[in-house]
């Protein structure tokens, strides 16, 4: 431990490359928030506290538990947690947090720990859609309202949980396909950099993309699908192999920005020119949007992580006794050459 402290102490005199960078990277809450794609709560099925069971309470005096699925180490998770924490602070709500570090078993016990610690309301960013039975049972027994963000859980809305707030991953895949079709002109060989195997984000983003390509642009052929595990390094090494064994590749669809940036690296390393291979990615991080500006990336579909305001608003409405929508699908924007420069500051 002496070693650890000494190591930690050394950070006192660090000096990284460009200090201004850190200001830029700081999450910007200002413009943030999310917009609901289907704003009228009445259009979809709704939920009220009477239907769900439980009692009304005042959000201000309540304790909210937030279970994050992955380490706050990628821009998406950082922005997500920060947004929730900021909103809780703004509203003066007591927030308990737990982080499952990408281990599903840990997330289950995390949530149960949160309940045991006295959380009255839960916001969960699930690591996986299935396997929530134990948590749901405990929550149901105590009538604890649950809102899941960014990923849905496979259970009955308004019975097992109150509502889901997040993007439609299949839809994201479809929109990415549209971008790809536009960028490539609908013809040629393309590749997909998949996310981690066994992850339903991967599954849905692939499904949406592949379906849309089949429908709209039969001229595009997916000739290569390999996992880049949502990581830049893996995306880079897979792409390096890809461009050597399939030199004629026209486009690469990366299921998150990091892998897309890895692909950019690989293309640069192989001496390709910007724009020679069209890259479409999903997430909307600052680096990726900058990639559009620089000409390496053709389009980025946004997946907005700033769930804080919407989540707390939903909880507030719900606990007051009013009705909330079961599926709150948010409207994700997209970045293309047209708006990348101007919207760069909106990226996280």
């Amino acid at each position, binding site marked *: 431990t002496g070693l650890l402290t000494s190591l930690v102490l050394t*950070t006192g005199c660090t000096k990284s490359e460009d200090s201004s960078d850190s200001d830029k*990277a700081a999450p910007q809450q200002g413009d943030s928030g999310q917009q609901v794609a289907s704003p009228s709560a009445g259009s979809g099925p709704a939920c009220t506290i009477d239907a769900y069971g439980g009692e009304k309470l005042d959000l201000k005096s309540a304790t909210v538990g937030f279970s994050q699925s992955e380490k706050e*180490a990628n821009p998406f998770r950082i922005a997500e947690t920060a947004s929730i924490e900021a909103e809780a602070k703004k509203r003066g709500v007591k927030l308990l947090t737990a982080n499952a570090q990408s281990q599903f078993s840990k997330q289950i016990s995390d949530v149960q720990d949160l309940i045991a610690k006295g959380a009255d309301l839960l916001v969960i960013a699930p690591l996986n859609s299935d396997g929530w039975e134990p948590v749901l049972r405990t929550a149901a027994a105590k009538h604890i309202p649950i809102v899941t963000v960014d990923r849905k859980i496979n259970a009955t809305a308004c019975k097992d949980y109150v509502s889901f707030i997040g993007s439609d991953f299949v839809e994201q895949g479809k929109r990415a396909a549209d971008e790809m079709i536009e960028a490539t002109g609908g013809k040629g060989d393309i590749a997909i950099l998949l996310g981690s195997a066994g992850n339903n984000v991967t599954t849905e983003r692939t499904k949406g993309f592949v379906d849309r390509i089949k429908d709209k642009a039969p001229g595009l052929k997916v000739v290569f699908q390999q996992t880049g595990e949502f990581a830049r*390094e893996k995306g*880079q090494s*897979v792409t*390096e192999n890809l461009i050597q064994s399939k030199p004629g590749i026209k486009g690469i669809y990366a299921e998150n920005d990091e892998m897309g940036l890895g692909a950019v690296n690989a293309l640069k390393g192989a001496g390709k020119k910007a724009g020679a291979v069209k890259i479409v990615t999903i997430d909307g991080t600052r680096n990726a949007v900058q990639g559009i500006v620089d000409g390496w990336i053709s389009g980025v579909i946004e997946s907005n992580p700033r769930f804080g305001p919407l989540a707390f608003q939903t909880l507030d409405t719900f606990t007051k006794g009013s009705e909330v929508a079961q599926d709150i699908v948010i409207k994700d924007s997209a970045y293309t050459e047209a708006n990348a420069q101007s919207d760069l500051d909106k990226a996280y």
Partner: protein
Amino acid sequence: MTELTLAQGRVDRDRLLRLLQEYGVYGGVAALLLFNFAFTDHFVSAENFRTQAVQVAPVLIVALGMALAIGTEGVDLSVGSVMALSTSLLSLYLGYGPWAAVLVAVAGGILIGLANGALVAHLGVQPIVATLALMVAARGLALVLLPQLKDVRDPGMTALGSGDVLGVPYLVLIAVALALLVAFVVRRTTFGRQLLAIGDSRPAARLAGLPVRRVLIVVYACSGALAAVAGILATARLTASDPTSLGTLMELSAITAVVVGGTPLSGGRVRIGGTVAGAVLIQLLTTTLVKHDLPPSWTQMAQAVVIVGAVYAARERGKR
């Protein structure tokens, strides 16, 4: 007469088995190369070989340190996390210029190695657990220092990652130089001999007056330093510091490379040539599977089969 030829045949078979045991890895590498020559499009190109060499370099460097640790009948699970830590430190200190940052990063790796070594040598903690603890802690530390991915724009680092001499990338040159250095240390220095003796029989080495603790500490420090170097090179190649995912599962790849290369986990023996070949074998295998666009399920099963096959071929045959 017949008996003679029989005996002859037997000896030949023995020799063949011995050859297989000694050089099985190289055979495996050759087989994979041949397969790719025959069935993989665009495989035979300088560019491709360069890519493969560059991709294997970090694993190889980590495996060199791992081979030393394994030679002492230990293991170092913390290498992947050390890579992450080194990338964090690198990024944090890049403001002082690339050399200073590299020094700090390597120093960080050495520190973790020293901690490993102290736990193992002075406190007698089993290497696998000691390094497991530091694996968890070092990764955490890396993330504390640098919570998220950060781009590296230093021209020196970029050059390190993508530059070359006469067409041979710096990364590959460094890896080769380190492999030669480690091989030299193992073969020709007192330290190397002592390391092997300690790995073979710790009590005997202790009674023979060898500086057991010092050797162990130096071994783990070397492993940490090499892992840190690998982390720096990986960072330079990626032109970004990514402490979350850099080096995850690296310990397993490195151990696999070492063991597939014919270094027994029971210590007392270190084969650097084999380790290099082992790393190359794993690299070629993944490349082959990626190039043929096989799904992850296949990739994992194929790796399992190849690992077992390689180790099976190189196994110590019974004395019976």
